[in-house]
């Protein structure tokens, strides 16, 4: 009975996009359009040092000379880069000093999103309850970061990017764009010029971050793009687990999200990066609106025996175009990529990973599960390459696609480049539809068709769900169910 009520509630709650509300918050905008003055404006707003402004302007110059790439299996009308706001911030007096000073309406937004921002609530919980520090980014600025003090005691820096540029200029200067160079690609270059905020994390040598760090991104303002920049540095022997969640309101226009995430790992360091991406996917029937999610994510395993693990659950966005990558430079370093990409309605996703083996005895593993329903298209595109020096490199890739319905599409495009005689690369892929036998079995046991599909899909993606941190796993499982709402029958 309880299960039945839960399902009814879930269906009622999720008939539309849950996070589709707009919050009317006093916003401050930069003028529409993009030119060098806007770049200067953003830099001035952030009170950045001169070197940062020069860096941005140079990026902008280079961006002007670049062409928008078109090789992905996604189609969308040409983006008018002049018809968007590049800076939108909730109006605040001198920046919030504590949670009490933050606009209560804003806090309400986060409460709606289910983010336990208020530390006291978390602290008041049962002893041993999960605790995680949160950095919340609202449109272009980071509004609040929790647990800073406790983290600082461990020597960990966790703060908004803009603050890091001011207070930890040396560290930022050393590592910024060292993983994703300014002109790496069109969208990364645009991001370099206009990024407004994001998270900065530095974990000093030998420190195991005592809690999960997490960032919530939300695009709220109309016609605005979000360009956040995240930089995480794990020094020798450090460990950090980082979670990222995204939502946006329902709008008729497409909004651009072009983020850059850089991870740097020194010897024996480990970073676990988990994403639950739930941007507004656009109207399922007409395909109107939704976020263009064009993100560059890359981890550089510089140190020997370092390890990076990307886990992503992609359910939102009108278009997703991203390849979280691992550059395995250090000897014995390893990279992992676990992904669930679900597309429904008219969503398009072209996502996957790159495992670039440069060092000896490097290892990587890719598990990708794609599910397409409705009229959507879902592409896995991945590269596994071994440099001549990457002796003993090993990769295992498994990508499975599940098709639900007659009008969706699933593609698998792996690239394998093996340049030495001592590497072993294995790849396997399957594309199938939901098994009718299994569905029948579940249904004759009394499950409705929708429940049966959810059960089977959850089984299909189980390998990846298991890799998610506890807090996310529950949310992700729910998301999987939501995303497939209305895809059968």
């Amino acid at each position: 009975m309880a299960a039945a009520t839960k399902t009814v509630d879930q269906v009622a709650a999720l008939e539309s996009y849950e996070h589709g509300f707009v919050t009317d918050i006093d916003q401050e905008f930069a003028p529409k359009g993009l030119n060098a003055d806007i770049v200067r404006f953003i830099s001035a707003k952030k009170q950045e040092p001169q070197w940062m402004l020069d860096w941005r302007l140079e990026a902008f110059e280079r961006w002007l000379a670049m062409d928008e790439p078109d090789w992905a299996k996604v189609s969308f009308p040409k983006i008018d880069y002049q018809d968007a706001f590049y800076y939108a911030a909730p109006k605040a007096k001198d920046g919030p000093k504590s949670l009490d000073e933050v606009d209560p309406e804003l806090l309400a937004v986060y409460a709606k999103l289910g983010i336990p921002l208020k530390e006291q609530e978390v602290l008041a919980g049962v002893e041993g309850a999960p605790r995680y520090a949160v950095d919340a980014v609202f449109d272009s600025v980071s509004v609040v970061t929790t647990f800073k003090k406790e983290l600082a005691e461990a020597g960990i820096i966790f703060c908004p990017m803009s603050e890091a540029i001011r207070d930890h200029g040396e560290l930022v200067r050393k590592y910024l764009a060292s993983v994703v160079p300014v002109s790496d690609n069109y969208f990364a270059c645009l991001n370099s010029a206009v990024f407004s905020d994001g998270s900065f994390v530095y974990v000093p040598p030998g420190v195991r971050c005592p809690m999960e760090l997490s960032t919530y991104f939300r695009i709220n303002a109309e016609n605005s793009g979000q360009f956040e920049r995240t930089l995480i540095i794990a020094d020798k022997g450090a460990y950090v687990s980082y979670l990222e969640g995204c939502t946006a309101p329902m709008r008729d226009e497409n909004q651009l999200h072009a983020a850059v995430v850089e991870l740097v790992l020194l010897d024996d360091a480990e970073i676990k990066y988990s994403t639950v991406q739930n941007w507004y996917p656009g109207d399922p029937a007409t395909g109107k609106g939704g976020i263009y999610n064009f993100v560059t994510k890359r981890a550089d395993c510089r140190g020997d025996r370092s390890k990076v693990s990307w886990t992503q659950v992609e359910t939102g966005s009108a278009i997703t175009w991203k390849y979280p990558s691992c550059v395995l430079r250090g000897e014995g370093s390893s990279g992992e990529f676990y992904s669930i990409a679900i597309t429904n309605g008219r969503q398009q996703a072209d996502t996957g990973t790159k495992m670039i083996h440069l060092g000896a005895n490097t290892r990587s593993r890719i598990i990708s599960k794609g599910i397409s329903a409705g009229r959507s298209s879902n592409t896995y595109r991945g590269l596994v390459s071994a440099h001549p020096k990457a002796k003993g490199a090993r990769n295992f890739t498994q990508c499975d696609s599940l098709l639900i319905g007659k009008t969706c599409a699933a593609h698998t495009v792996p690239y394998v480049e093996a340049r030495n005689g001592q590497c072993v690369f294995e790849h396997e892929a399957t594309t199938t539809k939901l098994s009718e036998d299994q569905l029948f079995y579940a249904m004759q046991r009394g499950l409705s068709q929708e429940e049966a599909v959810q059960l089977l899909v959850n089984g299909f993606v189980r390998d990846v769900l298991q890799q998610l941190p506890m807090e996310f796993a529950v949310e992700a499982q729910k998301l999987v169910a939501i995303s497939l709402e209305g895809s059968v029958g």
Partner: protein
Amino acid sequence: MTLAAAIRTGDAGLLPSRRDEDWRWTDLRGLLRVLPDASAAFAGDAGAGPFSALGGEDLVLVNGGRAEIAVEAGEARQVCLRFVSRGAGRHASVVRVTLGEGARLRLLESYESDGASLAQVDLDIVQAGQARVERVVIADDDADAVTVSQTQVRLSPGSRFSQSVLTSGARRQRLETRILHPGGQAELRLDGIYLLDGKRHADLTTVVTHQGVDGATGQLTKGVVRDQSRAVFQGRITVAEGADRTAARMAHHGLILSDRAEIDAKPELEIYADDVACAHGNTVGALDQDALFYALQRGIPADEALALLTEAFIGEVVDRIEFEPARDIARAWVTARLGGRP
């Protein structure tokens, strides 16, 4: 076809380059800044080809040309089709093959060159219902030759096409097969073998488009690269909307036997129908050291052990050739290229 146009006009700017996604690993423009002169007509004797001993009709195109093979309904034929390049010129060949209802054709094809030639072949095969083709190709090119073979096959419901391509590569070589598969119980087998050494390069590209219900495709490619050679495997299976109950399997396995050799692979699935069972597997790597050790400790010399193991590895593909005399020739060809070499 830009390559054909480049050969016709002599304009190197028309050659495909690595900026073309389909040619990213087989760059011709970067290789040939200037095209060789057009080949002169060849008057001498082309000698015997790899399949000449098997009899049947001979169709030899030396330094380009045009030919047609029309197999009437119900007829069965065996044709040795030889593309021979003599000298260092550029030339193109065009061959049209048609098969009537229930016709059968054994197409024993070879590529033979003796210098720095640039050759392009355009082969077009159209099969009516119930027609059967078995195509066995041995590409035995010169190390300085540049060869591109482009084949299009149009199947009909109930027809069958099986192909085995064996190549030892060239300076740059691409053997490309594009197939329109109408479903309707038509069957398709696409196999490939590459055995490369020195600085040779070979690119086996296949594109299969399933357009109707109930189609089947089986694909197995295996190969060995040594020295500084480079093999490319690109396989794409597309299942169009409505082509339900398609069963497609693709496998590619490559062995790298030297530290400077390279294998690039791109097995693609592009699926627009939901009731399908498609899978691909791809492995690239070194020889199993345990197997080698086992052979060594049984007293088999290293060279021989290596030859034995690689031959067994490749043998699986050779065994799938249906026409036994051609299978024997293919096996001997493989053994000759693997035997006794470390």
